[in-house]
């Protein structure tokens, strides 16, 4: 097809624009996540969008869906397909000399080729946290609590954080299934969420093992398991300790134990995390403990973390907020480019956005309506006549720069 015949609105499959309304919501969500991560002492780091394919291959990351390119000497490069592995690479190499636990966070875009018949974004934004250099229940609980805080601060409601434990599942399988290939098949079935295949493969095993991926609920699940499979008792105890720590935290009520959460990727070796929220049909966040990942870039180092997907997060925020008041705090100031310039400056100095116009009042009202600004102000004698679009009030303000901040 002649490219000129295409509508100029058309974008490549998987690509998407964000108009001002959505962009503002996404910005607010990201700001809330950054603020929360900072409050827990997770310092932001940035990694490049373009990396060597080898960096991901070291971590056995499947690159089938990655955008590949080449640099001048023929090395294969990729647009980063995720943000966890680059963060692990950076921390394992450039921060190897860091004296204590590393608390790091990131926000950025990752990329994957669109798949035919499966609409999804080719560029997706993630925000995440990594706690590197400490193992044990306290670190796991800190990460889960931080995730819960991030979701709540971003405006999500009714979310649930499902926690599994790869170490528990591995210990149970190692103790009860002799054939390593059968263990792999079982793990693969659970990772694919195919509980029918799991039960088929577990046929003849202890009913306890056969029911493993359907074990959900609270810490009592682990007590019974530890009693039945002594070899898994240590792993169960560690997981139960994490849950006990979480009980007293703000995350407690949202936690659901689900031993069916199993990762196919081999570097997960402890707690596994999947967070869901009403309004999003895919997990809003995923994560877990992957002490083995750091070893791909040097020395093994304990690590636990999560990544929040901004797209489903945004849907969950919208679902929680409903179609509420969409007006943005700000003033369309008629005359603000002329006689009202000092007033515009005074409002901005108080943190109120001002759209300054030279036009007449009707243009101002139409603009406020189209862009969702809360106030329209028109010069009136020495002061202003102000329409508050959120409440419908008509005000007469002698000093608008002092009257408006008090209404917020």
């Amino acid at each position: 097809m002649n490219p000129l015949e295409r509508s100029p609105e058309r974008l490549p499959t998987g690509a998407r624009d964000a108009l001002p309304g959505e962009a503002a919501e996404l910005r607010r969500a990201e700001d809330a996540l950054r603020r929360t991560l900072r409050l827990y002492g997770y310092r932001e780091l940035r990694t490049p969008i373009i990396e060597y394919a080898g960096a991901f291959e070291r971590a056995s990351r499947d690159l089938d869906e990655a955008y590949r390119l080449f640099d001048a000497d023929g090395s294969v490069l990729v647009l980063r397909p995720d943000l966890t592995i680059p963060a692990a690479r950076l921390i394992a190499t450039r921060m190897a000399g860091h004296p204590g636990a590393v608390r790091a966070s990131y926000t950025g875009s990752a990329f994957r080729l669109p798949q035919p018949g499966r609409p999804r974004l080719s560029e997706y934004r993630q925000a995440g946290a990594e706690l590197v250099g400490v193992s044990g229940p306290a670190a796991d609980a800190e990460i889960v609590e931080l995730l819960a805080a991030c979701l709540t601060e971003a405006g999500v409601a009714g979310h649930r954080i499902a926690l599994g434990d790869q170490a528990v599942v591995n210990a149970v399988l190692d103790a009860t299934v002799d054939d390593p290939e059968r263990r792999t098949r079982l793990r693969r079935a659970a990772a694919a969420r195919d509980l029918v295949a799991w039960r088929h493969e577990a046929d003849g095993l202890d009913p306890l093992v056969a029911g493993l991926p359907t074990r959900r609920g609270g810490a009592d699940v682990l007590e019974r398991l530890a009693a039945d499979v002594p070899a898994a008792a240590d792993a169960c105890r560690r997981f139960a300790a994490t849950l006990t720590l979480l009980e007293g935290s703000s995350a407690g009520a949202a936690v659901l134990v689900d031993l069916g959460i199993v990762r196919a990727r081999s570097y997960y070796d402890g707690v596994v995390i999947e967070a869901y929220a009403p309004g999003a049909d895919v997990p809003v966040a995923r994560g877990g403990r992957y002490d083995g990942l750091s070893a791909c870039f040097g020395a093994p180092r304990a690590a636990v973390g999560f990544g929040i997907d901004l797209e489903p997060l945004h849907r969950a925020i919208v679902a929680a907020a409903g179609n509420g008041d969409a007006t943005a705090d700000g003033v369309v100031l008629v005359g603000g480019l002329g006689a009202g310039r000092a007033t515009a400056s005074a409002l901005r100095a108080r943190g109120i956005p001002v759209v300054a116009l030279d036009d007449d009042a009707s243009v101002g009202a139409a603009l406020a309506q189209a862009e969702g600004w809360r106030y329209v102000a028109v010069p009136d004698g020495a002061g202003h006549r102000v329409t508050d679009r959120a409440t419908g009030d008509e005000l007469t303000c002698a000093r608008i720069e002092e009257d408006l901040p008090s209404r917020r």
Partner: protein
Amino acid sequence: MPLGALLGGSLDLMERAGIDVAVLRDPGRKLALTAPDGTVFITTRPSDVPTYVEAGAADIGIVGRDVLVERDPDVYELLDLGFGACRMAWATREGDDPSDAAIERFGVVTVATKYPRSADIHFSRLGRQTEVVKVNGSVELAALVGLADGIVDLVATGRTLRENGLVEREVIFHSSARLIANRAAYTLRAEEIDAVVAAMRPVVDEGVVE
């Protein structure tokens, strides 16, 4: 809820599991029906069931494994419900299997099917070169008039194949009705979904629903 062949078995099973499905016995022209306990039942063609469940428009659904293999949706497969048993099979005309000759002479076997992904999975696992032709109507015809060397199709009794002079050569997989769940709902409504599974499992284990 899948309209068609699986609906009867689904209703029987759910009724035995203590789920009130009375509204579905006489649906009229309505596609979404609300039961007295507030459960909303959505009826749709079977191939759309995974679409609704994957997107979260339905929390759980009942669908044949054949549809799951063909669509490969990102959903939980919770229970094999046992009824609706059939198999995906590779069938060719009676007499010598023409696929060996086709490979020898043309290097490729032509397969007509409504299930291109199932056919692909099967033949690529065998390492057999195939050319898959997607058809929508009676697939048997394709093998009879020489559009293809054989067909991949769902077989229940095998009668349609026999009446058209076709022979089943290989079973690709066995299918039956499955209970599936949306990923988010499986966690967000864990207690309710676990209760449905717990109610259905003993009925399935008894094997009384055909």
